[in-house]
């Protein structure tokens, strides 16, 4: 009886509204936080930080941002990578124009720029829906990447056309640039991702979350019960693009170290979309599960057969990865549109009543 809810009575609405009304979920979260904040940093190798831990967190955050817009508010976007780019370039401009600025503050501020641009590109959503809106966001995708390439001011007119993350310190410690240590960068990412996840959980379970979900499920009914659709959609674009922009800043400043415009092209947008779909649209936890799978799968395909003494060349690994991810997308789109998060919920439901199925 791992998941016993018997005996856990709610005596107030506030306790029923808690994020984890069931005690075991709170314990599970405790374990995850302990792993993320203490155990992994103590044990992980440089390789694990660089290929798994840091990218998983950053991709989760980007998917979380997309999920606010697509999973919660029902507005499909194919331009996620471009908005990550806006965050990254905004951060770059801020730290080079104002070197005294605290890097963490710069990262959190860079989301404000992507939020503004997100709202501007969200305006068509007031008129068009679904497929047509997706095409409109694709236009944003092309336009912004073109801008990153053509507007020299954005990359300080350097000859490579790429942005290079400078050495940045916070309280005397290097947090970005070639001098920064991986573990420090991991903690910066973890702080930002935890903070924004907590904020998103609060937003999605309250008034704004219900407003978004109502807009997603039946927009005309939403309007007739008193929801201002324009506000609902534009706040979704703003919050989503903010999170995505911050993820973009982390992506470049805490992980890649440098970026060319085409880094923010369509393949990255699709990668984030796949994470959100496989993880589960309309779920918070799904973004983490999806990111673990998408980031972890190629690493696993590279290392596990090797450890078992089977040699697979890297081209085959790549093909295998694409085939597995492709089948998973098809599986989730057709069989389980709510993704891994829904599968977990089903397992949990079974555990609650285990061992008596009736």
């Amino acid at each position: 009886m791992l998941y016993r809810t018997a005996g856990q009575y709610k005596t107030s609405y506030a306790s029923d509204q808690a994020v984890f009304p069931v005690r075991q979920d709170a314990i599970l979260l405790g374990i995850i936080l302990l792993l993320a904040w203490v155990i992994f940093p103590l044990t992980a190798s440089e390789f694990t930080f660089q290929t798994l831990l840091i990218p998983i967190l950053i991709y989760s955050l980007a998917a979380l941002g997309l999920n606010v817009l697509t999973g919660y508010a029902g507005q499909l976007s194919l331009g996620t990578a471009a908005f990550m780019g806006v965050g990254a370039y905004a951060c770059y401009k801020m730290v080079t124009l104002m070197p005294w600025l605290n890097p963490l503050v710069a990262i959190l501020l860079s989301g404000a720029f992507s939020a503004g641009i997100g709202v501007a590109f969200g305006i068509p959503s007031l008129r068009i829906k679904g497929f047509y809106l997706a095409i409109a966001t694709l236009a944003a995708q092309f336009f912004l990447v073109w801008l990153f390439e053509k507007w020299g001011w954005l990359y300080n007119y350097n000859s490579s056309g790429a942005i290079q993350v400078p050495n940045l310190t916070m309280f005397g410690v290097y947090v970005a640039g070639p001098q920064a240590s991986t573990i420090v960068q991991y903690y910066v990412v973890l702080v930002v991702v935890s903070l924004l996840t907590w904020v998103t959980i609060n937003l999605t379970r309250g008034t704004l979350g219900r407003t978004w979900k109502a807009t997603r499920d039946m927009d005309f009914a939403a309007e007739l019960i008193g929801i201002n659709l324009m506000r609902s959609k534009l706040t979704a674009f703003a919050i989503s693009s903010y999170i995505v922009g911050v993820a973009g800043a982390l992506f470049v400043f805490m992980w890649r170290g440098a970026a060319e415009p085409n880094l923010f092209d369509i393949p990255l947008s699709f990668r984030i979309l796949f994470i959100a779909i496989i993880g589960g649209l309309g779920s918070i936890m799904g973004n983490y599960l999806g990111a673990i799978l998408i980031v972890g799968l190629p690493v696993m395909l590279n290392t596990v057969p090797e450890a078992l003494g089977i040699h697979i060349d890297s081209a085959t690994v790549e093909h295998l990865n694409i085939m597995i991810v492709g089948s998973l997308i098809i599986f989730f789109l057709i069989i389980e549109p709510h993704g891994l998060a829904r599968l977990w919920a089903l397992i949990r439901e079974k555990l609650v009543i285990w061992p008596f199925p009736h």
Partner: protein
Amino acid sequence: MTDQAEGYTTADGRKIGGVVMEMKNITLRFGGVVAIHNISFDIREGEIRAIIGPNGAGKSSMLNVISGFYTPSEGEVWYKGAKRPPMKPYEVARQGVARTFQNIALFEGMSVLDNVMTGRLTHMKAGILPQMIWKGRAEAEETENRIIAERVIDFLEIQHIRKTPVARLPYGLKKRVELARALAAEPTILLLDEPMAGMNVEEKEDMCRFILDVNDEFGTTIALIEHDMGVVMDLSDRVVVMDYGKKIGDGSPDEVRNNQDVIDAYLGVQH
């Protein structure tokens, strides 16, 4: 029944107040189709006002005009003694007009409780910052409005399904949840578009009882569309009869029942 400016008292002793909403010479055209042709009627405080008529008579269109979903081509809507300027549906809702739909329009991806809570959105005013940290006004509001939502849930006897996703519910219960969502708004006027359509006899009886109880206990003014003549005659204080977009009768159930035009329309006399 005496019909004075100050209202009237019903046979069962309920006090009906003054006019709360008045439709004045409403005409609604869709291209060449005239869905509503120069119709006037009023709705009084505390009454159950029915709109009846054959399919395609323009009843739903009339509710859509009241809730601001359609803008009338001609005519005026008066609410609480003032002419209503052109308004978006969400603004009408915020003035205290709630409704249900002929084809259920629930939020399928949400639980029953969350659907009912969306009915409270017009009363929830916390800014985005308190919502982000789930503190202050946001937290307090959530509990206050949850209490009201739970009261409605108890009232409509749907406690047992409050955490169920609405997509899993049978049709009759969905209709009831939709009523709960509208009631949760504590509306001045409640518009019900065929609340009993597609229900079995037992479900219809339940729904009738709920409508009467809502009117009785909360004093909510109700305007409803219904097909079933028997039900309408039992429920309503006054009835508007529509046919081909025109008003062909208006009065108490007895008056309407004996009106020759109404009898013709319902017996399908060719026009």
